[in-house]
């Protein structure tokens, strides 16, 4: 069982610096096996080095895939995270 959705990233710093760290923390906290992909490359969303190496910029489209219990709920919360501009908030 796994489900995937495509999300457009809103953070003005993309997934660098603080937003990347917060995203990885959220993915780790979900307890599900989550991967994030940009183009051909897919990485473990619990890996900050993996996430950083995607080089995700603002307005990039990424695919989130979750496996495990509550996968829809996990994807909902991660999607919400990615569509919020965290630099504005901080």
């Amino acid at each position, binding site marked *: 069982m796994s489900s995937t959705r495509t999300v457009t990233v809103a953070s003005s710093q993309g997934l*660098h*610096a*603080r937003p*990347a*760290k917060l995203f*990885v*923390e959220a993915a780790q906290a979900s307890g599900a096996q989550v991967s994030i992909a940009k183009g051909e490359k897919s*990485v*473990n969303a*619990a*890996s*900050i*080095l*993996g996430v*950083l*190496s995607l*080089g995700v910029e603002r307005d990039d489209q990424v695919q989130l895939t979750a496996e495990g219990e509550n996968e829809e709920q996990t994807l909902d919360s991660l999607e919400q995270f990615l569509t919020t501009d965290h630099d504005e908030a901080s």
Partner: protein
Amino acid sequence: MPELSGIGVGRGIAAGPVARMSPPPPAPADEASERSAAAETERVQKAVAEVAAELEARGRTAGGMARDVLEAQAMMAQDPTLHEAVATRLQAGKTGEYAVHEAFAEFRATLEELGGYLGERASDLSDVSQRVIASLRGLPAPGVPDPGHPFILVAEDLAPADTALLNLDQVQALVTIQGGPTSHTAILAREKSITAIVGVAEAASLTEGQQVIVDAGAGAVITEPTQEQLDEAQARRAAHAAQAEAPITPGALADGTAVPLLANLGSAKSTEKAVALGAEGVGLFRTEFLFLSADEAPSVEEQREAYQSVLEAFPGQKVVVRALDAGADKPLSFLNDAPEENPALGLRGLRALMANEQILRDQLTALAQAQESTEADVWVMAPMVSTVEEAEAFTALAKEHGLATAGVMVEVPSIALMADELLSRTDFASIGTNDLTQYTMAADRLLGSVASLQDPWHPAVLRLIREVGAAGIASGKPVGVCGEAAADPLLAVVLVGLGVNTLSMSPAALAEVRAELKLHTLEQARGIAAAALTAATAGQARETAQQAAQDAVQDTVQPAVPH
């Protein structure tokens, strides 16, 4: 009294126990492990957990931006992708040390290839890797120590990142073995008002926990202080702190002679702090920040906006804008990025601008437009001028674009010696002491092995400044200083004594320089400058000036009363 000497940054004083910065562990060799893969895995896991916990604990203490950086580093240490890469190597029979070293290096290379922000994270990763390797070997963690109490940090030298993250509640003072007065450590220490002495060759002999006094004003580390000395240091520290809190007044000598104190700014962002610290204008606004990370020259409109935001903060005050200072020494694809054997002596500064006149014209246009919409008194100057013709050409071009006050930087001995001819053709001179010292001493200011020559106290440099000061007095045209020399309080007094009218420095140095100027009259400043000029070496010039200043202050405080 055992004393080690070096070059003091500012006049701060501090006492406390030494804590040494540990060097990074040497890179591990590719050897077969004598342990089982399972045993190595356990060792690595333990070391990683320790390092992550330490980084998180430091993050909690540091707070703010540093907390995010340190927590991100802790996450890197525990990264699952990295652990897979380490595990693969352990299965192949490598040692824990080597597996960590190689796996981290692989990720470092990936991040470096991505460049930009990620490239910068590559050094964070190296730091984590070195910490894990040190932990595996049972060595102290490399980098700034955290003994849990206030300490005097002793290091070979500090990376800019180390200096930026220093916990100023704990680090009482900084002593480095390497480095000169214009090394980045000295510049950052001055910017953050950290008591520091750089270039203390004998500091290698200081041991962990040893009590020392760091007296930056005297450039001395006192290694076996008496209680009396410790008490005196404590009293001077308190007086120094009070000085920083003193009300902000315009820069002036004891007799009321005005010496406007201006700020050196490198971006529009730092204006607020400069105003808060009492900058009476800007003596050096570096425009490079707009150009250095660009693939093509910024548009007139982009430049106008950036200049305007600085000018707006200083209504009615002077803002001296320096035309783009780049080229061979700071290569830009649209200016000059041709490799040269001696970039400091090459096509740079005004030379590069004259070879790409449109870039200079655009900059002058943007500046003139920004001037229109604000009330600041805009001055413009050219960097790296070596001939009178260059000064003349730049001045004409600036006037053509509607900029009323145009001048040049004096950074090359040839133009300092021609100061009278120079000032009859341009409106002002601003002495850049860092480059002037570099060119006078023929010592690359970026090269550690010749750092000891990069000392603006050298009498040869002072004599050149005397030429410019004298030409300023004779012509009635202003002469400023906008190099590191202006931020050294006693040297600031000497500069004024040599005929300099304004001093420009990093904003953090303003309070100390303001306080020192107030101690001396113009006549005394001239006397102190004359004394320094009699010296044969930089060290003697500094000592002679110190002695002359002390004598002058005592004369003022206790006037000779006839009995």
